[in-house]
């Protein structure tokens, strides 16, 4: 007889302190030892984790009204422009916005020392942040200028709303050209000298529930050290089947989630401003998603190991920027983590951009929260589209291209 359990049953066990939770790393060896059936019987929840740069991130802030009132039309936080084309004292600070006056790539490769992600980190660290705003003035909002300091506690609302986070899977980036390139995947040395990847592999949230059987809108998650929720599928949510060079289907890849959570609960250990040499600013975000083991099928995917999960190898000197497929194939996360892979017959040294120790820490922390009864699981109010839903990718029609 097949095993099944409901969200309610799991939450009852959380309340009574009897819930059995393991991390997505621990579950791998448990299932190898005991088999799917026995492990499914014993384990209620598997916790995942990831910590890495996630560019499509930012925070909505409400500063509170000044006296007299101002309807802000331009806003800077520590000299980083924020978007304020919304109501009077609301703004959105995006993670990748560089500080105004940053030399950018004029002296290539630029340093991009401070940006929106750093502002968000400084807010979470409870550091004072300089707010400057201008307005054209109206009868109801007469003030035209303000310069003051804010802190995370002095403003009304601050919530992270990240339109695209926790990529299900990501490219392993290499450089086939003969010069060093500076990318969002780090500094890639010429002639296949290094390969960078950015997924926590067997701990990665969306790789462990690749068909979104449990992760959907309303799923409660660990977000930046606080509690957050899956708000929607992420932008560029293109779940599809990853195939190797021979056309063999491996596992779904390409899903993303949009997440939301109270910035005031977060911890700067899990929200870090980042600078990528020659590329730009961004923010590293820590996310942990619990997978309720509803049945053996959910467990089968949750127990996948680094040996069974793969990343496509992509050349960032030409293939990525110009869509010129090089057919470099796929490599397993087990190979990537060992430190060397083979590409076009050459041994290439690998390095991650996403922190595996932090992913372990997040999955373990989420596990503790659940065991202590601090975190109950939510049933999604709506499922996310999956690899079988035939999502079509649109490209920007560049009509003026010569």
């Amino acid at each position, binding site marked *: 007889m097949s095993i099944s359990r409901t969200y309610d049953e799991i939450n009852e066990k959380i309340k009574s302190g009897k819930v059995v939770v393991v991390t997505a790393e621990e579950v791998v060896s448990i299932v190898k030892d005991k088999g799917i059936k026995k492990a499914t019987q014993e384990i209620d929840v598997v916790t995942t984790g990831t*910590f*890495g*740069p996630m560019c499509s991130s930012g925070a909505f802030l409400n500063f509170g009204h000044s006296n007299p009132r101002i309807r802000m039309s331009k806003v800077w936080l520590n000299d980083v422009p924020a978007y304020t084309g919304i109501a009077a004292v609301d703004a959105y600070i995006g993670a990748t916005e560089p500080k105004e006056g940053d030399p950018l790539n004029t002296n290539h*490769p630029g*340093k991009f020392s401070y940006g929106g992600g750093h502002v968000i980190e400084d807010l979470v660290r409870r550091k004072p942040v300089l707010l400057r705003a201008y307005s054209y003035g109206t009868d109801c909002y007469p003030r035209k200028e303000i310069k003051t300091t804010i802190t995370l506690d002095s403003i009304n609302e601050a919530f992270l709303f990240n339109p695209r986070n926790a990529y299900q899977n990501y490219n392993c980036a290499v450089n086939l050209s*003969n*010069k060093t390139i500076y990318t969002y995947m*780090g*500094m890639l*040395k*010429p002639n296949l*000298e*290094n*390969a*960078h990847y950015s997924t926590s592999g067997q701990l990665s949230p969306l790789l462990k529930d690749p068909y979104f059987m449990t992760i959907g809108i309303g799923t409660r998650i660990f977000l930046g050290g606080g509690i957050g929720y899956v708000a929607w599928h992420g932008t560029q949510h293109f779940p599809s089947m990853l195939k190797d060079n021979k056309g063999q289907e491996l596992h779904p890849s390409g899903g993303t989630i949009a997440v939301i959570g109270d910035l005031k609960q977060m911890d700067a250990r899990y929200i*870090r*401003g*980042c*600078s*990528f*040499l020659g590329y730009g600013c*961004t923010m*590293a975000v820590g996310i942990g998603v619990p997978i309720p083991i509803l049945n053996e099928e959910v467990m089968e995917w949750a127990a996948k190991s680094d040996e069974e999960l793969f990343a496509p190898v992509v050349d960032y000197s030409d293939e990525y920027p110009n869509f010129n497929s090089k057919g470099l194939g796929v490599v397993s996360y087990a190979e990537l*983590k*060992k*430190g060397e892979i083979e590409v076009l017959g050459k041994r290439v*040294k*690998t*390095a*991650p*951009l*996403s*922190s*595996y*120790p*932090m992913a372990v820490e997040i999955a373990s922390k989420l596990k503790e929260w659940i065991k202590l009864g601090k975190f109950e699981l939510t049933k999604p109010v709506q499922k996310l589209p999956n690899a079988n839903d035939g999502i079509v990718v649109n490209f920007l029609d560049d009509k003026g291209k010569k």
Partner: protein
Amino acid sequence: MVSRKIILRFGEETSGKPIIYHLVKDFDLIVNIIKARINPAKEGTMVLEITGKNYDRGIAFLNEQNIKVQMLDEHVVHNKESCTSCGVCTTACPTGALYLKRPEMQVVFDSSKCIVCQQCVKVCPVKAMEVCFD
């Protein structure tokens, strides 16, 4: 006699010159080349251990030749509190001073292997690698 470790940085215009020959022949210095490297842009880096009573004159000669001289007591510090152990520095590091301890995937810094090339300082996304001077 005291031996000192220094780093020489050559530009494109100096990397082709027989500098070490002059240090030995003209200044009677004992030179031990610990590391030498030249990049595709013809810029070079060399780590030397130098012994000899004409040390200061040798350094003055290098300065005249437009070769940047740095003392190895300029060193790189790994700020463990700030480091997230992402690991991206480990392929930038030319000597293996920064490496991932497996299977934990924790970034470890072995300062004895560091040649202060500062690549890690440039590529670290959270600025956890810093240069310090003694």
